[in-house]
């Protein structure tokens, strides 16, 4: 782009730019947009495949939460580990998963990340450090603390991230895990993606404190609130928390305030919130639209560039679905595989 302002790593050079535009290169930022679109189109593709009966079971879509997943994963390496939630497709993509193998998993095929044994709710990509989505609310939080304990004991320098929703903040596992992480000063970051509702129950009705980040003070760790729909703001908080964790200074709780456009799962009739509320978020606070506007404002991309990203993503999604359709199903005779480690 002729008029592109080159993203610089020096704060002094562009003091008024948002964090991400100071920290990351234009190419990295365009990649972020690409992945945010990949998450959204993946969710839409999965939803469509479900509607057409190609995917069974249920699924929890993260449309509207793309900036949160991307911002948190931005400072991570493939060796850093995450635990995710039932609403975990975005985290999986943000951490580097291949949508082909994700679709294959949703279609229950052997080429899927879990060889068709896990599906949407257990999607994982261990080679990229994703220890898996989790069907149990707050189930992954202590596991992330365990990963952080391993990182500390093995001196790997890695950090662990636990994504969870607002609903998880009222589970005992959340409190036990935060306490232990703080007592042992572990390199773990707790990321609460507060989308306002645990299934149908709003945080106002379920949670005694105003902000979930307020819980952090009970465990003597920083509690940071960010606009979860603002990529740069999320990335900045993640960057600081990761740096703190790697420096051995202990855990951070980040509350990423966001919104899911779709219902909790496929059984949701959306009776607990208004159409106006949903439309307001979609029209005025869409994370992709907000990020695109910034990218354009700072000359990182133009309309043609955005169109090219959309086209590339469209093809990736189509290819992914095709790959999933053509992949083989597991053999019934292999039903009992993977329950225990096969001993040679």
């Amino acid at each position, binding site marked *: 782009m002729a008029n592109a302002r080159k993203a610089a790593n020096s704060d002094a050079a562009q003091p008024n730019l948002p964090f991400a535009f100071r920290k990351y290169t234009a190419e990295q930022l365009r990649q972020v947009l690409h992945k945010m679109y990949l998450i959204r189109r993946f969710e839409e593709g999965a939803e469509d495949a479900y509607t057409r009966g190609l995917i069974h079971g249920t699924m929890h879509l993260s449309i509207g939460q793309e900036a949160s997943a991307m911002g948190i994963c931005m400072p991570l390496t493939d060796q850093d*580990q995450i*635990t995710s939630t039932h609403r975990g497709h975005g985290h999986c993509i943000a951490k580097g998963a291949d949508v082909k193998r994700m679709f294959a998993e949703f279609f229950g095929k052997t080429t*899927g*990340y*879990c*060889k*068709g*044994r*896990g599906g949407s709710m*257990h999607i*994982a990509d*261990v080679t990229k450090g994703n*220890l*898996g989505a*989790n*069907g*149990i609310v707050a*189930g992954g*939080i*202590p*596991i*992330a*603390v*365990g*990963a*952080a*304990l*391993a*990182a500390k*004991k*093995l001196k790997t320098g890695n950090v*662990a991230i636990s994504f969870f929703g607002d609903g998880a903040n009222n589970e*005992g*596992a959340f*409190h*036990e*895990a935060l*306490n*232990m992480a703080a*007592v042992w000063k572990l390199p773990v970051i707790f990321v609460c993606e507060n989308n306002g509702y645990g299934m149908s129950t709003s945080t106002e009705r379920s949670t005694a404190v105003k902000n979930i980040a307020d819980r952090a003070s009970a465990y003597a760790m920083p509690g940071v609130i960010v606009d979860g729909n603002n990529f740069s703001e999320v990335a900045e908080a993640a960057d600081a928390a990761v740096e703190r964790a790697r420096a051995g200074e202990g855990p951070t709780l980040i509350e990423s305030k966001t919104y899911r456009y779709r219902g909790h799962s496929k059984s949701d009739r959306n009776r607990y919130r208004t159409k106006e509320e949903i439309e307001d978020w979609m029209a005025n606070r869409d994370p992709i639209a907000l990020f695109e506007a910034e990218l354009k404002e700072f000359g990182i991309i133009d309309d043609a560039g955005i169109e090219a990203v959309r086209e590339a993503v469209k093809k990736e999604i189509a290819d992914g679905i095709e790959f999933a359709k053509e992949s083989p199903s597991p053999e019934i005779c292999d039903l009992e*595989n*993977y*329950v*225990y*480690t*096969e001993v040679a």
Partner: protein
Amino acid sequence: MDVAVRELSYAQAIQEAMAIAMEQDERVFLMGEDIGVYGGAFQVTGDLVERFGSERVMDTPISELGGAGVAVGAALTGLRPIFEFQFSDFATLAMEQIVNQAAKMRFMLGGEVSVPVVMRFPAGSGTGAAAQHSQSLEAWLGHVPGLKVIQPATPHDVKGMLLAAVADPDPVMIFEHKLLYKMKGPVPEGHYTVPIGKADVRRQGRDLTIVATSIMVHKALEAAAALQAEGIDIEVIDLRTVRPMDKQTIIDSVKKTSRLLCVYEAVKTLGIGAEISAVVAESDAFDYLDAPIVRLGGAEVPIPYNPELEKATVPQVPDIIAAARDLAKGKR
């Protein structure tokens, strides 16, 4: 090469196994409530913290769910934790991590990971600790594919099975009867393993098979010795592993004796005895039976505090003698 064999208590044998495991593998560490300077509620970890330091003999807060989850996460990412529950009853607080996470992680992820965690559960009645500190919940966990569940009955076996558990790539749950902790027996020095999934015929006999678990093995052996005087020759099988169960040893024995008595401390109904009975009923050993199968298990009550009531809740030697005698003499 001669290996020295000493008399050690069951608790000492566990402690020695954990020490050997930690000496041999840097990844092995202990987690639990008050296992450090306190030495554990039953002094099983004892002074290990002085030898290995508080990083490897880690006191946890009183957080069974979170603590178990941390152990699962650490096992998933390269460590070999041995997690001590202060009482097996507290497994109820951690069922989520044990049943939903540890047991299923490998399967859910299509074999991409394993969870080499060992969990130790001091179990059973006889200490006057009443209903919430005396249960035998091994069948609960035995019901879950993905877990291995063991109940070593002797100092020799608990050391060898614990070392086998630490080496095992999958989650292993060890139920240790609290009344066994002080029991002494021969234990070889150094590293050895006793296989998980293999029962042991503790006593050969012709007239009747008793399949017993944990402390009931010793009670069954006592009953068998008493009945020998009456000319009743009893075979006693120590099941040792609840899951995966060693069906063949049970079947072979019943084919020889034609009579089966199951003895276990946990609540009788829907328990290990039902499974053992079904193993025989579903096999060709069924045709060899000369009498109905008999189960002796815990009464259908929570464990009471009063010592006489407590004793009456679980099978005692006279109960086993009476049941075995009736069964052997065809009074059933």
